[in-house]
């Protein structure tokens, strides 16, 4: 995956699904992936997308009262990179 990709972590599963739905509705390609190992105490799914899309996604999440955390994919190695 390219350098400018990020994962976006959410507080819970419902938020991941709502965010994924929003991305699909707005034609942003995102991938639902298992939360990478270093962050795996959080819910089991997260979204992976480009940095630009993550910006937009973060805006949506904030407006919807979701708490997110963004991590560049270069920051971890657990087989998902």
């Amino acid at each position: 995956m390219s350098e400018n990709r990020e994962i976006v972590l959410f507080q819970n599963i419902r938020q991941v699904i709502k965010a994924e739905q929003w991305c699909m509705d707005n034609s942003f390609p995102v991938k639902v992936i298992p939360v990478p190992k270093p962050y795996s105490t959080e819910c089991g799914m997260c979204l992976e997308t480009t940095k630009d899309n993550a910006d937009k996604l973060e805006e949506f999440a904030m407006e919807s009262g979701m708490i997110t955390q963004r991590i560049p994919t270069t920051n971890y190695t657990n087989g998902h990179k």
Partner: protein
Amino acid sequence: MNLYFDNCATSFPKPAAVAEAMVRHLNETGGTYGRSAYPRILQSTRLVEECRDQLAAKMGSTEAGKIILTANATTALNLMIQGICQKGGHVLTSAMEHNAIARPLEHLRQLGLIEWELLESAPDGRILVDKIASKLRHNTILVAICHMSNVNGMAQSPGEIKKAIGEIPLLVDASQSLGSHPVMVDEWGIDFLAFTGHKSLLGPTGTGGAFIRYPEMVEPLLYGGTGSGSDSFLMPSFVPDRFEAGTPNITGIHGLNAALKNRPVAQHSRDDFAALLQEVKRNSNFKVRCAADFGHQGKLFSVVHNSLSSSELALRFYEEFGIESRAGLHCAPLAHRHLGSFPTGDCRFSLSPYHTPEELNYLAKAIHDVGK
């Protein structure tokens, strides 16, 4: 002919899509909720969240994330009543309650945590809204009421009740109403709502839930894995996770979601139902239990005969007419005390959207003949 008139116990039939969705989940798609991210899980997780969204739309809430999926209304009511009342106080409830509210309250009273008392009601059980203020105390922590009585079908006005109690939280048991009667959680200011999936919503048994507007006011009933915040031994503070420990009834939720998306158009009208009630009321051997005002009448009513017991009635309806009705107290002794039929109970008929006008006419004739 559909002669099943016990839809308040559990509705039947269900839309065909309910069983199809459940079989598909069991035999084809599978998958749990959250926990990982492979497509099978993703698909069933999306569906669980779709179901929450459908439920929110049905109850008039914009906050689907505050809907907690439980096994039934009883679990939801226990979660909320026990979870709200842990610090003690005074609770008001109505004369028409089901034991799903009365027993948790009595349990907490016996533990020495709360006192509970009844609001004043009209003869049909409707809460006298202008008398509410005189019952409120400085330590009233909750008003818990059944929206639609499962004995006479009378529906309360939660919005008026909420106005009368102001800041005090209102908990509404919508077990009979959600699906068959308008429920407007946001507009009416309902703070907590319990519902069940297998009655008016036409879903499978083992489904139901709670709407919890103020999660911080409620202690969880169950503690365990949620697939979130797993590094901590404490339950998460956010919803729905805070109240959803353990794997949910995903197969059942598939069925409930299908029921919500495939609700049948009612095959009889309100006028057909009104005509049935009028017909039954004409028989002077019966006392008919229903709302005083038809505008507050839900899809059920019950009858007391002047000489036959409720169980004799139910037996005759079945043996002579093939009609399945329900005799007894319907788990609502408070309501029967209020209506004057404790401890013998009455014989109840509850309708489904699948009943045709012809089936209602058949019921009217059967009631007439048995009552002669």
